[in-house]
């Protein structure tokens, strides 16, 4: 699903080009609202396009100006005699709608609205933004922005710098998409310092038109881009993002997506009635769902580029085994610790390699992995060691560590690595530890696109990220499966229920219709009815208060366990109703639910809710009273497959309990997995369900009776008319 205006998805431009080609490869650009004053946004954007070597034609639109910087100016975009593919709008926000209406009249295909003063300033700005969205939709114009830095394309076929960044970046294979314009300028400066180049660089601002989903789709097909970096502040259409991410990161023409998402949690302030609601802050949900969509989430700009440069400039390793070559023992051990901790292998070499190392290194050198060429090593030892380890079949990649001793010929070592790299088929990463003395060597490595990291641990992090990319691609395709359920039985209850919390007996009946393991239960409205129900179900019995208005029953004594006989039931019923009347004189109890005691087991929570960005989301983890204290939970977007449910169980510590600890037999894990799939189906089938908690599900071995739902809460929205 694309969020580019529907008119655009069907629009065929010259040669059947993609609508966003007008953004990245325009034949002509009009900068609307230019002024002749340097060091202003409008002027600087115009000069940037002019100075970057743009291959097309540039038109400044500046009322009552004959020219801007010697280029003939026009009063309005409609006055330009030639077709205009792209308009860059730099007018103040209050007149952008006029400019866009003229662009529509002119037949402009795409616009970049640099102007601020829209949704980000409040309701008045939001109305303005809605208006410009409508104008663009009416004319089939692709809009980037508003409130953005602009767009850069380093492809020599375009060389477009339609932004107010200070300089055009170097050309490279990395595509960068950002929701923050200010961050973009810092990233460009950071990248320049490290000789990192970009293919396309987009600040998409308020994403009122073109979103990250459209841009990811575009970069997937872009032959100049190998890896995509993404910075997001908010996720508006999480499902579309996940769908495109899965497509981009796997299959033919797969490209990794590395993303930073700032932790704005509008849901944080939401009063959540359910455990799921209170645990499912958007950040936690996004984190889990990103993992399952192929998006590698990182926590810093440094981390973003650390992995990107390794992926973009080095071959993909065939496995996770690293050979470390170092002239200092301590950093070599630190690197080994970091590598192993991150899931990389630091194994041994074959005999042939050991012999080569022995022949080329002094007796004091360590020829096992990590290879220590010792402190007085010069480039000859480094070259020999690196070449030998790269040829070893037990090695997939090499990490070269250097500490600057007085005799270390840093530049020569860098040049040697570059020379080895030219014929290497395995990736090489470096860590020249230090700053001043190693600066020129580092520069040489960066210019040759050999990834460099100040600390070996950072190099290991980057290598581990690339492993995740490789492992993600090797995961089998995951197709959610629909299990047989009694939809009609659930509908009979849910369609008739008012908004708010469903009484427990009805909620259990809904779960039972969807195949969850619900123990037998009956409802009673009086003391004698409760006894009759207990006699029928069997002792020991459990009474649970049923009231639409009470969600957490334990807190008001609304649960009585282990009732051995009729007298115990009578006593419990009396106490429960008295306590309820005292605690909630305003609420009306509906009665009590009677069931048998469930034998003890592992308490897990299965939850579901409708996330504003991702839609129906499932939760699984350690359950019980302290679920919000321990927060040992994970999330997935419904619908899920059994394989995905299996991964959810494994992702949390609670999963280990289910597999059996200290000689305990395993629980019915397959049953838990199936229950998760079924809950996902329930949430997709019934849109009125806002939140759902099964807490706890008592997970037990199959031979001990299997799993049982001990408590459930379902909250419904108003019925649609």
């Amino acid at each position: 699903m694309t969020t580019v205006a529907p008119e655009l998805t069907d629009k065929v431009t010259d040669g059947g080009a993609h609508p966003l080609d007008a953004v990245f490869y325009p034949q002509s650009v009009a900068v609307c609202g230019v002024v002749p004053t340097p060091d202003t946004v409008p002027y600087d954007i115009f000069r940037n396009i002019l100075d970057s070597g743009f291959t097309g034609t540039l038109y400044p639109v500046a009322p009552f100006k004959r020219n801007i910087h010697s280029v003939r100016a026009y009063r309005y975009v409609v006055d330009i005699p030639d077709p205009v593919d792209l308009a860059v709008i730099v007018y103040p926000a209050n007149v952008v709608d006029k400019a866009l209406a003229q662009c529509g009249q002119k037949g402009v295909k795409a616009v970049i609205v640099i102007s601020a003063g829209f949704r980000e300033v409040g309701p008045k700005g939001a109305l303005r933004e809605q208006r410009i969205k409508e104008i663009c939709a009416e004319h089939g114009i692709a809009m980037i922005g508003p409130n953005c830095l602009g767009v850069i394309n380093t492809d020599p076929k375009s060389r477009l710098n339609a932004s107010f960044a200070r300089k055009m970046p170097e050309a490279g294979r990395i595509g960068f998409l950002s929701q923050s314009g200010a961050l973009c300028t810092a990233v460009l400066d950071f990248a320049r310092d490290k000789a990192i180049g970009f293919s396309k660089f987009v600040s998409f601002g308020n994403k009122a038109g073109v979103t990250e989903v459209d841009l990811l789709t575009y970069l997937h097909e872009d032959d100049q881009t190998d890896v995509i970096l993404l910075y997001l502040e908010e996720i508006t259409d999480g499902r579309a993002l996940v769908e495109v991410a899965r497509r981009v990161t796997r299959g033919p023409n797969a490209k990794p997506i590395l993303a930073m998402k700032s932790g704005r949690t509008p849901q944080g302030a939401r009063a959540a009635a359910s455990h799921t609601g209170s645990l499912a802050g958007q950040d936690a949900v996004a984190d889990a769902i990103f993992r399952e969509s192929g998006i590698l989430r990182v926590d810093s700009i440094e981390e973003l580029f650390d992995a990107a440069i390794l992926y973009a400039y080095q071959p993909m390793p065939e496995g996770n085994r690293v050979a470390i070559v170092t002239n200092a023992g301590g950093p070599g051990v630190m690197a080994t610790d970091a590598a192993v901790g991150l899931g990389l292998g630091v194994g041994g070499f074959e005999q042939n390699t050991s012999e080569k190392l022995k022949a080329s290194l002094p007796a004091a050198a360590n020829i096992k992995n990590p290879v220590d060429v010792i402190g007085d090593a010069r480039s000859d030892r480094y070259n020999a060691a690196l070449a030998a380890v790269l040829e070893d079949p037990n090695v997939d990649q090499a990490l070269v560590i250097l500490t600057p001793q007085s005799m270390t010929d840093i530049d020569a070592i860098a040049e040697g690595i570059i020379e080895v790299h030219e014929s290497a088929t395995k990736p090489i990463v470096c860590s020249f530890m230090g700053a001043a003395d190693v600066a020129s060597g580092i520069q040489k490595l960066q210019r040759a696109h050999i990834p460099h990291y100040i600390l070996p641990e950072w190099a290991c992090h980057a290598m581990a990220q690339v492993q995740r990319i490789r492992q993600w691609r090797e995961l089998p395709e995951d197709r959610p499966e629909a299990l047989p359920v009694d939809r009609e039985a659930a509908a009979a209850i849910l369609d008739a229920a008012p908004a708010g919390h469903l009484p427990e007996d009805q909620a259990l009946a809904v779960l039972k219709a969807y195949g969850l393991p619900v123990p037998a239960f009956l409802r009673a409205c009086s003391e004698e009815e409760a006894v009759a129900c207990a006699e029928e179900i069997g002792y020991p019995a459990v009474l649970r208060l049923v009231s639409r208005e009470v969600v957490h029953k334990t807190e008001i004594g609304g649960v009585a366990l282990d009732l051995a006989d009729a007298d115990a039931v009578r006593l419990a019923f009396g106490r429960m109703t008295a306590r309820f009347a005292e605690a909630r004189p305003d609420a009306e109890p509906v009665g009590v639910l009677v069931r048998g005691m469930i034998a003890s087991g592992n308490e897990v929570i299965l939850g579901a809710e409708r996330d504003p960005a991702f839609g129906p989301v499932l939760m699984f983890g350690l359950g019980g009273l302290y679920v919000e204290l321990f927060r040992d939970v994970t999330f997935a977007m419904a619908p899920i497959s059994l394989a995905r449910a299996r991964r959810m169980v494994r992702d949390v510590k609670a999963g280990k309990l289910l597999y059996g600890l200290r000689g305990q037999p395993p629980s019915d894990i397959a049953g838990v997995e199936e229950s998760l799939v079924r809950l996902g189906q329930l949430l997709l089938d019934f849109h009125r369900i806002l939140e759902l908690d099964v807490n706890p599900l008592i997970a037990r071995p199959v031979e001990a009776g299997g799993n049982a739902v001990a408590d459930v809460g379902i909250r419904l929205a108003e019925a649609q008319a």
Partner: protein
Amino acid sequence: MATVEDRVKVVTGRILGVDPGEIRPEHSFTFDLGAESVQSIELVAAFEVEFGIEMDEDEALAVETVGSAVEFIAKVCREQGVEVEE
């Protein structure tokens, strides 16, 4: 006495380098006449001098078109007891 509109056009023409004869009431200062943000502030100051009035800067800068400026200035003149030909 020249009207408020005529005087607004003369001042605008002077600040923005535009022939007053080409200025229309429906023209936006930025979109149609090319005013930069610093010129918008200059215009406010120039109108104050021309009419001998004091305007609230935020309110004045929120005025978008020549016609709205004429109305706004006329209103301020009335409030401040400055005689003008409307």
